[in-house]
């Protein structure tokens, strides 16, 4: 077999978000031939965390997988592909995941915030990758598709500017309109 890469849409073998103890918060593996079960997946995650939590070096090869990663405070984000996969494609998926999560959590990329918005994060992961195929790599589009509940969230004076900027960046015209309304309303109050 030659070393040429397979012309396939199935580029992503797995996506994982771990906490700062290496525990799984969310993880999905798309190729059943890589890990035979949850036990192996967890073992791999532990191992992966061991090798990556100290050095913020962005890429590592482990167990025949190329893993690109990124971390913030107490969260670790991983995207996995085959050992000779084009890393730059994986990195674009990783950036999309991170930026989308960051947008959903309003730049507050921490475990607590992530767990509070777990439903939206799950939806975001589903929008980024479908069964191993990168579905969308633009973080704005992803957060737009899932961040549907923005208007429900309570505003307070410290975060209002940031939130509105967020909205301006990420939401469509209709929501933009409602954001303006809310801004007016909260300032009046």
């Amino acid at each position, binding site marked *: 077999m030659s070393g040429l*890469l397979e012309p396939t*849409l199935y580029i992503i073998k797995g996506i994982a978000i771990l906490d700062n103890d290496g525990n799984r918060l969310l993880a999905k593996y798309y190729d059943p031939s890589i890990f035979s079960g949850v036990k192996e997946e967890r073992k791999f995650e532990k191992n992966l965390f061991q090798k990556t939590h100290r050095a913020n070096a*962005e890429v590592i090869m482990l167990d025949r997988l190329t893993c690109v990663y990124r971390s913030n405070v107490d969260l670790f984000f991983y995207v996995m592909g085959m050992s000779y996969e084009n*890393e*730059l494609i994986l990195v674009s998926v990783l950036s999309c995941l991170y930026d989308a999560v960051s947008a959903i959590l309003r730049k507050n990329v921490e475990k607590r915030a992530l*767990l509070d918005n*777990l*439903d939206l994060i799950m939806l975001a992961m589903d929008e980024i990758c479908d069964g191993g195929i990168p579905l969308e790599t633009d973080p704005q589009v992803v957060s737009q598709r899932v961040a*549907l509940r923005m208007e429900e969230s309570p505003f307070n004076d410290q975060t209002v500017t940031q939130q509105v900027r967020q909205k301006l960046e990420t939401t469509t015209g209709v929501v933009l309109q409602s954001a303006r309304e809310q801004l007016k309303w909260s300032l009046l109050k």
Partner: protein
Amino acid sequence: MIGSFKQIKKDEEDGGGNPYHSTDKTSVLQEARVFNETPVNVKRSTHVLTKILYLLNQGETLATKEATDAFFAMTKLFQSNDLVLRRLVYLGIKELCNIAEDTIIVTSSLTKDMTGREDQYRAPSIRALCRITDASMMQAIDRYMKQAIVDRAPGVSSAALVSCRHILKESPEVVKRWVSEVQEALSSDCVMVQFHALGVLHQLRKSDKLAVTKLVSKLTSSSLRSPYAICLLIRIVARLIEEDEIGYDSRLSDFLESMLRHKAEMVTYEAANAIVTLKRSSARDLPPAISVLQLFLSSPKPTLRFAAVRTLSKVAMTHPNAVTACNLDLENLIQDVNRSIATLAITTLLKTGSEGSVDRLMKSISSFLNDISDEFKIVVVEALRSLALKYPRKQAVLMGQLADMLRSEGGLPYKEAIASTIITIIEDNPEAKEKGLDHLCEFIEDCEHTTLAVRIIHLLGREGPRTRQPSRYIRFVYNRVILENAAVRAAAVSVLAKFGAQCEGLLPNILVLLQRCMMDTEDEVRDRATYYHAILATRDSTLIHRYILNPPQFALPSLERALVQYLQSPAVEPFETRMEERVVPTHEKYAEQLSAIPQFAHLGPLFKSSTPVELTEAETEYMVRCIKHTFQNHIVLQFDCTNTLNDQLLESVSVVVDGEGWVVQTSLPCASLPYSQPGSCYILLPIPEDIMSTTGTLSATLKFTVRDCDPATGEPDTDEGYEDDYTLEDVEITVADHVQRAARSNFAAGWEELGATNELEDTFALSAMSTLEEAVTQITQFLGMHPCDRSDRIPEGKSSHTLYLAGTYRGGHEVLVRAKLALADGVTMQLTVRSDDPEVSEVIASAVG
């Protein structure tokens, strides 16, 4: 900031940090009852559904009943129009559809969402729907899928295309109906849609090479917008170039090269990687790709550096000179914070650098070897192996390094790589042997991997007895018998026997040790000990040789066939195993074909089939190749013929052969040979009694009746044909046709055992050969025997060499050949033949020259 962080940390320890921390399956499934409330309690339902999804994601498994119940409860939530909740339901459907039963029930709800107005519903509902429907149901949504594929909203189009790709795995015929829509989507403006459309289209046409070529030539001339689609296209193009043997299109490689200048790094890397990976790429094609990678080496992005250095390390294996240009940049990466990058940089430098830099590089490797993953440690070991073979003088340093690595932490593949590297060095350099064996002995003292321990013990059995002081290895081996599991013990017992068989002085002690092993708890170990003890105790050199040093080696499929044939024959004499000792099994296909022909059924087991020999030039009117099948007393010549003229039908095709001393006993013609359909005819020749005339040259002519026919239909125009013939090249029957390759694990012992009774010796000047390698290959091929003790490998720079060959002559005669070769104005050879039959020795000795 730090204070608040600590607070959170504390909360977590209380379990408060993770609201899902104490979630358990039973109670959550209880809570799922909330789904049934009317009107839907959006907030609580969302929370409970998230919990269920979280549990599934953590690896919790649901029983079919539990999953089905949860699934049905979930369908109630379609009543709510909350966006998030609805989307979570889609997720839930996808997660549960493989466990739950009757999931078809949601089809109509999903179809409604899929065809509705709300984009936020449409895309994800398509993806969920395609998970639960099978091919037959697809018919029903056929129209909607077609619309969705070309939908204006990119999300909807992508969702439909990705679903197409999933469906393709199960039922490609469904997706084939949508091909024109997919084609339309390919010209979409959206980056992802283009990528997905290309993926689906390629998958649809993959098996049709012409269609792929067309698709590629269309896309390479237009310019795709999506970098992802271009990466995919590059892979498709690379595959085409690699597979195309003859009709190679230079436009394709021009396309690859032009992509090196694309503005997206993703694409330039993909193109560079494809170019350097292509086998077709010569040293001339590489530089543009290498210089792209070289630029990446100094990128601030670790991933880019990693990608570049990994690809370069791959190139360094095949074209080290092409990478030398990057050496300076690679040197800078040795200190890279990313250990993977540093390791790859060093191993690449080891391949491209000079002998002088080895020590320095080794030092930097050992400083961080413990920080890197096993994968990379293996990469390092591989680099050391090629280095050791390249610079034999550095082997002492390398061996030390390898021994250190062997002692450190690591998994089986890593340890295996080290051990086999040490073994390679031992085999390559006799001076390093004892040192290497010592390291390996020390390693098995504390080795947790059974397979590896067995392999090393086996190696000790092969190499140990031939060292200056065999007794020192006995302790290591016997320790294994005391301490290890059954598989290792059994291997150790066999190895003890090998020492006993070869070292006269140790035999009494070995017998004592073997006697102790007879008390083992494991059957296999006891059996082996008893067996070897019994043989060694006889001190009968023939027995020892036959059953310990050179036990018969069989090719099992051939042995099985021969035994079956023996049982079916009325023969009364015992089965002759000697006939069946061979390295390569007989060609099963041939054996089956021939035994199916009644005229050949009585010939007995097939002894050997030659490789096909072409009897015509390439691209002539008729193509004929000959395969020689040797039996105990007969040779069958099989002629595979192909008629390449489309206006001729050949009938009663046969081959007429003529040679002195050879009489055709039976000739089986091929009744009809239409255009381009191969057919075979056979000739059966009894082998002459006189062993000296069993080789020879036969002239061959193809005879046939021609009937002209219509090229289009292949129907013959006439009822009557005319006879014609066609001269073929001669068929040579050589010594090799009578000899089967056999293995001897210990040639020297076999040589002694056979004795000088039937020895023949002669000296030859092989003036036509200019190197020892050439002589070794030629002699091995000519005699059709098997090189033993790795004597087919010649250490570099040597001017003399001894080749050991073993074989079985037709009739089951053992033949061993020792050829001493010396290089001086051509090759001089002293050939010594030993066998158990004087005539066989003579045939072999006279074959050369």
